[in-house]
């Protein structure tokens, strides 16, 4: 079914075959694990092993929700959405200041924020745990919100600085002439203009918080406070593994990230690689 013979690639049957084979292997490697989890979440495992195949069932989903899985879902949404909103707000102003003002030590400030992006959180778990435990801040969603804000902020500033450079400074200058304050400029002129960039930044931040495990593990031990990744992993029992529950829980934990990724992938890529590709 080739409509444009001119565009037809040179016929190299071996190379073509290799590419199709490579594509098949690539597709299998990328999709198979997710496919099996999704499929498994709708099957009753004991039956499927015995008979080789089994009908569809919602048993696993009913089971995890009867065990209180929705608490983790709610906790995760609460903590991650609030942290993302906070991080975006403070990052927008910081990014604006970095891209529009010149002051001594600006390079240092930007470097410090960039350093935060590469910072190994594992070395902060002891001090943060001790400081929080002393002040009764463990097992608190408010602490998690602040920590996740701190986790998300450096990269958000980096992304937003990138988006802000695409907006001409003459706009700001015109607004200043009209007597607008800098804060007004950010909230009323800049924000609507970089909305797409801000949405991409927020999405990325939300995904970072959504899949965070280590800090949640360190600071949350109360069952009613746990976030999704912690709650999900509990279905690996001491001796037995509840695969059905794990798969249903996994499907629910991945759904929001998948839905967010699809529309935003192009924007994310350009934001991520802006430092490298010039």
């Amino acid at each position, binding site marked *: 079914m080739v409509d444009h013979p001119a565009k037809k690639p040179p016929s190299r049957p071996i190379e073509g075959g290799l590419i199709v084979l490579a594509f098949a292997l690539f597709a299998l490697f990328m999709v198979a694990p997710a496919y099996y*989890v999704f499929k498994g979440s709708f099957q009753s495992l004991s039956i499927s*092993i015995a008979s080789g195949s089994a009908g569809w069932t919602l048993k696993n989903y009913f089971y995890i929700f009867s065990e209180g899985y929705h608490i983790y879902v709610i906790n995760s949404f609460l903590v991650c959405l609030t942290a993302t909103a906070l991080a975006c707000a403070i990052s927008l102003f910081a990014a604006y200041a970095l891209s529009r003002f010149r002051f001594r030590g600006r390079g240092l400030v930007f470097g410090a924020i960039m350093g935060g992006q590469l910072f190994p959180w594992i*070395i902060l778990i002891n001090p943060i745990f001790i400081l929080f435990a002393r002040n009764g801040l463990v097992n608190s969603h408010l602490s998690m919100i602040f920590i996740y804000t701190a986790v998300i902020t450096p990269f958000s500033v980096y992304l937003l600085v990138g988006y802000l450079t695409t907006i001409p400074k003459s706009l700001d200058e015109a607004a200043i002439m009209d007597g607008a304050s800098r804060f007004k400029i950010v909230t009323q002129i800049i924000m609507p203009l970089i909305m797409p960039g801000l949405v991409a930044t927020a999405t990325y931040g939300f995904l970072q918080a959504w899949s965070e*495990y280590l800090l949640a593990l360190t600071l949350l031990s109360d069952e009613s406070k746990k976030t999704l990744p912690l709650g999900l992993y509990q279905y690996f029992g001491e001796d037995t593994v509840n695969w059905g529950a794990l798969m249903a829980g996994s499907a629910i934990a991945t759904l929001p990230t998948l839905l967010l990724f699809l529309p935003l992938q192009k924007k994310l890529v350009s934001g991520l690689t802006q430092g490298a*590709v010039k």
Partner: protein
Amino acid sequence: MKTYSAQAQERFSAFFMLFPTFFVIISFYFYPALYNLELSFTDMEFTQLRTGGDWVGFENYIEFFTSNDSFNVAFNTVFWLTAVSVTLRLFLGLLFALLLNSKMLSSLKLSTLSRLFLLVPWATPPVVSVIAWRWMLEPIGGPVNEFLLYTGIISEAISFTADLATVWPTIVTIMVWNTTPLVAVSLLASLQTIPDDQIEAASLDGATRWQQFRFVTLPYLMPTLSVLCLMSIIWTFNNFIYVWLTTLAGPGTYTNVMATEVYMKAFVDLRLGYSSAVGVSMAIILAAFGALYFRVVGLSRMQDKVG
């Protein structure tokens, strides 16, 4: 407000706009990092949460650098966790990018589909990736073992996460699966910036396919590749989640890495001081890579970016 000069007002705004971010960075990064340094010179244990430990000088560091387990931990971290996984991730990422960029694939109308496939692991949270692969490799009922048994390649199911020969390759596979798409997509974006006439000119000059790749394509990708490489090293070296969720650093302590050592010493052995010393040692190694990263990305280039 007329009493302030315009310049003073600008300074005022800059300060207030940067203050919240700065506050967050200082209270959640700098202050805890310094406190961690202080902890590493004490013998603080979990029972001393409120009182704090006693000053022991370099004792924790000496213990870490002279203990036999540490060699194993350092080797696992440097070789398996970082070197092997980063190399494979970059290699596969490059391969995938070239595949997705090939004309054959777009003429078969598979480009969009393959980009979608790439999104699947990327959008999967690490916890779910570990669960998915542990199920794939499960001895009873797991698809990989079922397939190998069915085709007769093996006669007895392999317990991938319990067998010492397969446990590291398993962890590396999970990491590579979850993180390669980012590399592939970034490289694909740079591949698409290569002008077609460059490749055509090379092929007119009689360059073989390999030469075209080696002397035209690769130089174009080099800046992206080097940034990706350093970023991967830094993010992987201190990674905790894949090893912890796949094996809990086991069997025994066979797959223990520095990050899991920090966690276990603090929250299993309850030795916060010693754990902090391991953390500081890690941070020093990372700082070296961080410095290299800033060199490659170029602080100067960041300055261009900010104006």
